[in-house]
């Protein structure tokens, strides 16, 4: 059949008319209905908010990589799923702190590496941990290992971790998280100590089957895994940055598990589509309003305290976090050692007290600039702060910045107020490390410098008594707040939804532990 092409008689004007009509029609609310939920019971599909960055734990970028690493590698200990922070044995059959600087361990004898690299030995543990702290590796994750000196190999599967000084976060950060992954010494040495995008040798309950950048990572059950068998044959990890998109995918049955936006919590509390369930976990992140102590406009402590008291945290929770997050008391979240039961400045604004403090300060016609990221949550919170501070006569100009400019604020001498948010690991040591005098000009944007705080930070991680350690970190947060430079806002929240056939395994902060995911 011959097809004859003819020039369509559609001029510019007709096209405009047509396009207008088409636009109007497309705006009509036409229900397309939900796509049938996928029913492949051996495959678990979970959403990650980003794509894998590195297969090498030394260069892991955090939670996203760790979801994969914790599935394909083993650690001596792993986080225990649940609502309380705890750990459980993984590759270790025995692990014991014999004194403040020595931890003895013995490995299970049934863990082997793929690609013919044999059983896991204490040499592999030594290689993996010392590789992280080696200057040659230049691992950005080296601080997680703290004062690790070396690992002594005392038998084929026995060894001792030796520290230069006591380091309590070893049990909460170093061993069960990013840096705790045990690699095959033979495999990595054969590759010159560097991996490309593919794992050199795996040992976990899952093996990485494929990785399509920005599309999906597929994990398959490890046929040689001798531990408790994972419930799912295949795990597909889909990188979806936008939470709205992830929610739509979940409702369409394309995902079995996803984190959802705080704004959707209220809707999901009423009911989750497809018989799913909403789980609300706290988060470890901490958001706060910081004041630059070095800025000439913020030299007056009474003024800073007036600002603290004029900010209404519950109102910010309602407007910016949709009532799904709680006000925080500091930088250390509930459930962690050092969390304060209450802050020195109550969450609700006290305008009378704020006005009195402002009058005491003697400052008049105060105009301040508030820097914030260009995300709706932060710009909304900034506008609430702007409105509440105006009630005591302080004018705030909101300065919205894109992420590049915002995260380059460390050396911004004109920084006045800043709405900030840092990520966190499950140990208070990680939180206080950004506010020491050493961090001024780096991550300590408030230019807060306090000898007692520095001393607490440098000694609290060596304290083995949890009660004493908690007291130290509580005091450290008191010191921060007493300067008036901090108004703590929230630790946010991690709401997640899962489909009816899934039993999620999550850390107390809602992060996934894929190897422990079960079937309902």
């Amino acid at each position, binding site marked *: 059949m011959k097809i004859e092409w003819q020039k369509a008689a559609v001029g510019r004007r007709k096209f405009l008319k047509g396009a207008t009509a088409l636009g109007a029609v497309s705006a009509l609310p036409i229900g397309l209905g939900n796509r049938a939920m996928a029913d492949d019971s051996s495959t678990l599909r979970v959403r990650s908010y980003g794509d894998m960055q590195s297969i090498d734990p030394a260069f892991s970028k955090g939670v996203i990589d760790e979801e994969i690493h914790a599935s394909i590698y083993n650690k001596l200990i792993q986080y225990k799923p649940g609502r309380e922070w705890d750990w459980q044995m993984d590759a270790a059959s025995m692990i014991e702190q014999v004194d403040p600087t020595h931890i003895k361990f013995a490995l299970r004898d049934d863990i082997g590496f793929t690609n013919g690299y044999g059983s896991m030995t204490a040499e592999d543990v030594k290689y993996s941990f010392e590789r992280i702290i080696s200057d040659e590796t230049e691992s950005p994750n080296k601080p997680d290992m703290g004062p690790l000196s070396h690992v002594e190999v005392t038998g084929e599967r026995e060894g001792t971790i030796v520290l230069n000084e006591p380091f309590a976060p070893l049990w909460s950060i170093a061993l069960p998280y990013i840096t705790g992954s045990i690699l095959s010494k033979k495999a990595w040495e054969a590759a010159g100590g560097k991996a490309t995008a593919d794992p050199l040798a795996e040992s976990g309950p899952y093996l990485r089957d494929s990785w399509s950048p920005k599309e999906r990572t597929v994990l398959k059950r490890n046929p040689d895994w001798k531990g408790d068998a994972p419930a799912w044959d295949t795990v597909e990890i889909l990188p979806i940055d936008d939470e709205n998109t992830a929610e739509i995918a979940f409702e369409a049955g394309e995902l079995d598990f996803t984190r959802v936006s705080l704004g959707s919590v209220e809707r999901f509390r009423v009911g989750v589509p497809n018989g799913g369930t909403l789980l609300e976990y706290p988060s470890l992140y901490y958001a706060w309003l910081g004041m630059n102590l070095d800025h000439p406009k913020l030299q007056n402590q009474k003024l800073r305290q007036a600002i603290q008291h004029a900010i209404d945290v519950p109102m910010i929770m309602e407007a910016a976090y949709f009532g799904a997050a709680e006000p925080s008391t500091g930088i250390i979240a509930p459930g962690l050692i050092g969390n304060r039961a209450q802050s020195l400045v109550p969450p609700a604004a006290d305008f009378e007290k704020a006005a009195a403090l402002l009058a005491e300060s003697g400052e008049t016609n105060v105009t301040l600039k508030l820097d914030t990221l260009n*995300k709706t949550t932060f710009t909304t919170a900034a506008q609430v702060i702007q409105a509440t501070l105006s009630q005591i006569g302080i004018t705030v100009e909101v*300065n919205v910045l894109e992420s590049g400019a915002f995260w380059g604020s460390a050396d911004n001498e004109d920084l006045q107020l800043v709405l900030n948010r840092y990520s966190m690991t499950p140990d208070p040591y990680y939180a206080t490390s950004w506010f020491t005098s050493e961090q001024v000009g780096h991550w300590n944007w408030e230019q807060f410098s306090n000898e007692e705080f520095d001393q607490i930070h440098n000694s609290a991680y060596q304290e083995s008594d949890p009660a004493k350690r908690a007291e130290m970190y509580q005091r450290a947060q008191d010191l921060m707040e007493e300067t008036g430079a901090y108004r703590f806002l929230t630790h946010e929240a991690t709401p997640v939804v899962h489909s009816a056939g899934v039993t999620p395994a999550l850390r107390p902060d809602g992060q996934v532990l894929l190897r422990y995911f079960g079937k309902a």
Partner: protein
Amino acid sequence: MEKPRSELSLILRGVARDPLGLMGLIIVGTIIFCALFAVWLVPYDPIAMNIKDRLQGPSLNHLLGTDQLGRDTFSRVIMGGQVALKVALPAVFGAMAIGLTLGMIAGYGPKWLDNLLMLFFDTIRSFPTVMFALAVVALVGPSLETVVLVVMATSIPTYGRVARTQTLTLRNSEFILAERAMGASMTRILGVHMLPNIIGVLAVLAAMDIPTVIALEAGLSFLGLGVKPPTPSWGALLKDGYSLIRQTPWLVVGGGLPIILATLGFTFLGESLRDVVDPKLRKNR
């Protein structure tokens, strides 16, 4: 005896006779009217928060619902129009004035000056507008003035090039040669004789450019880099609406609809103006 009609009246009649032109005229007129009288038209203070009423749907109290801070979306849309025009009109007409002047000088002046100005235009044109705007905003911070200046700077070459081409065409016309023979100054030739013949084409171009500028301002505000909060802007409404689309679609409607209407209105008007102003097109219709 019938009173002779002015040029403007003739153009307006021509536009009004064209259905698309009339539609454009009505839309643009409405937007300008709303922007001019926004203060009296808004039912609520567009920056007044009422958090307990946040994210409401449309009702008689709030025609387009409320945003995440409980602010009336309809009031913010109306005031957002004022912001859009505050950016678009000075930016476009500023660029037109500067471009026209430089373009006429390039077309009428000596060759070296022409080459220099062309080099200047080409240099500016080599910057992608959005990237240039993002870089400037990141450098000096977002504000209405920054957006106006960026748009103006990047639009100058467009007007300059058109003005230059028109000037080159006219400079050897008989009436210009006659003026020169009579000793008229360059200022007089350009200002009195050439300008009226060029301005029409540039006005059409300006009308078609306004929606582009409105969209650019909305785009920067969508990225959170346009006007500063709490100033209402269509792009900022779209941005918040996009983040909250699962909670309420009305912010996206509130931010998107005026951008669509403004784009259509100014495009229809520009198309129609061009048809009326250009004698060749007028004959073909």
